[in-house]
């Protein structure tokens, strides 16, 4: 907007008389369509605002001002103003209904005693019980999965970690391939022949020392399994 138009509009707003009284203003308005439109709107708004109905003070204001101008503290005046209000009697129908209404007073259920007792004993636990079930189960947002994937793969992004992982993979591969190679190229080993031998012994002396010890242990020492020739004579 050029300065002339700006000045024209300022003068239009400031001027209490019409633009027709000002020759230079009228000349500019005749030449500038935008400013002429602005002048039209300004005139319209001004006329509308000045024709808004005036609201008269309601009668309530008299009482309020009387209260506000009475001697005494403002609180006392406010109480006086409130107490001066007319007290409306209750309608007869309401009074009748109130008298007819049965006076049934509901009793608190027995479980209330226990619940209150629990609450008083452990307030935090009661609070947790009361609200834990009401919490909404939130689902993990999709962005969390993306972040986790990013963080899992981000481990491989550092050089040291990448070297360690690659070395471990190489060792595992070497061991697996080495085992496979050995199983294919090593000489077959001779498997031992296992068998059973049944032998009859008349006394414990003929038994294997390990068998004798086992038998002695099982009998709790009740059976004398030691060979006679090993038995030492009292001196």
């Amino acid at each position, binding site marked *: 907007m050029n300065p002339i138009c700006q000045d024209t509009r300022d003068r239009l707003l400031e001027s209490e008389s019409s633009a027709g009284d000002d020759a230079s203003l009228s000349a500019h308005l005749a030449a500038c369509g935008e400013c002429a439109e602005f002048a039209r709107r300004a005139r319209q708004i001004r006329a509308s605002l000045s024709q808004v109905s005036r609201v008269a003070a309601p009668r309530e204001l008299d009482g309020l*001002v009387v209260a506000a101008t009475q001697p005494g503290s403002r609180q006392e005046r406010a109480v006086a103003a409130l107490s001066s209000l007319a007290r409306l009697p209750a309608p007869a129908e309401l009074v009748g209904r109130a008298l007819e209404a049965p006076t049934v007073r509901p009793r608190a259920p027995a479980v209330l005693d226990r619940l209150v007792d629990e609450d008083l004993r452990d307030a935090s636990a009661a609070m947790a019980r009361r609200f834990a079930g009401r919490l909404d189960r939130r689902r993990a947002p999709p962005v969390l999965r993306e972040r986790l994937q990013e963080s899992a793969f981000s481990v491989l992004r550092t050089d040291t970690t990448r070297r360690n992982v690659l070395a471990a993979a190489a060792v595992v591969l070497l061991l697996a391939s080495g085992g496979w190679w050995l199983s294919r190229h090593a000489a077959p080993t001779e498997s031992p022949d296992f068998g059973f031998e049944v032998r009859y012994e008349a006394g414990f002396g003929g038994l294997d020392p390990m068998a004798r010890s086992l038998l002695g242990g099982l009998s709790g020492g009740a059976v004398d399994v030691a060979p006679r020739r090993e038995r030492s004579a009292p001196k």
Partner: protein
Amino acid sequence: MRTDPDRPLVSACQASPPAGLQGAFRDLYEQYKDRVYNVCYRITGNATDALDASQETFGIMFRKIGEFRFESKFSSWVYRIAVNASIDIRRRSGSRWLASIEGPHEAGGLDLPRVDMRDDRTEGPSVAASRHELEEEIQQAILRLSPKMRAITVLRYIESLSYEEIAETLHVSIGTVKSRLSRAHQALDRELTPVLDRHYLR
């Protein structure tokens, strides 16, 4: 010393401090109650807050009239109290204010008597309804202004105060009055031009 039309009544109040709403103070009250209430109503936007602000205005006027020194016009002093009380009450009742945006008349629950400037003209029901609708739109547009611009708009366009009186009332310079009024006008132009075009063209 400027001549103030209210000087005799104010001086009478100062000479014998009023003991209530009586005597010279009652005359001042009768003279200003509609103007004060109108300003309060246009600034607060609802009847309840306007009543509170008006009561506050006359309460302050009653308590402070002895200290008035005629350094400004008495009317400017009264308007300043009314504007400040209205802005203050509007700030305090912010939540109620939001509810009242829907309809300033419903909020107060009062059937406001209107002093129509064009009572001598007979208008049909449809014209009256249309005019009330337009007034509601204008009131809503005023309410959407900031408190300072709202006050200046009400004083200028609804109370028809001069720039000097507005400057005296709001304790600002005439330049400030002009710039605020210009900004208020721009805002009202945006808000009201479509409404006025629609109203006048139908």
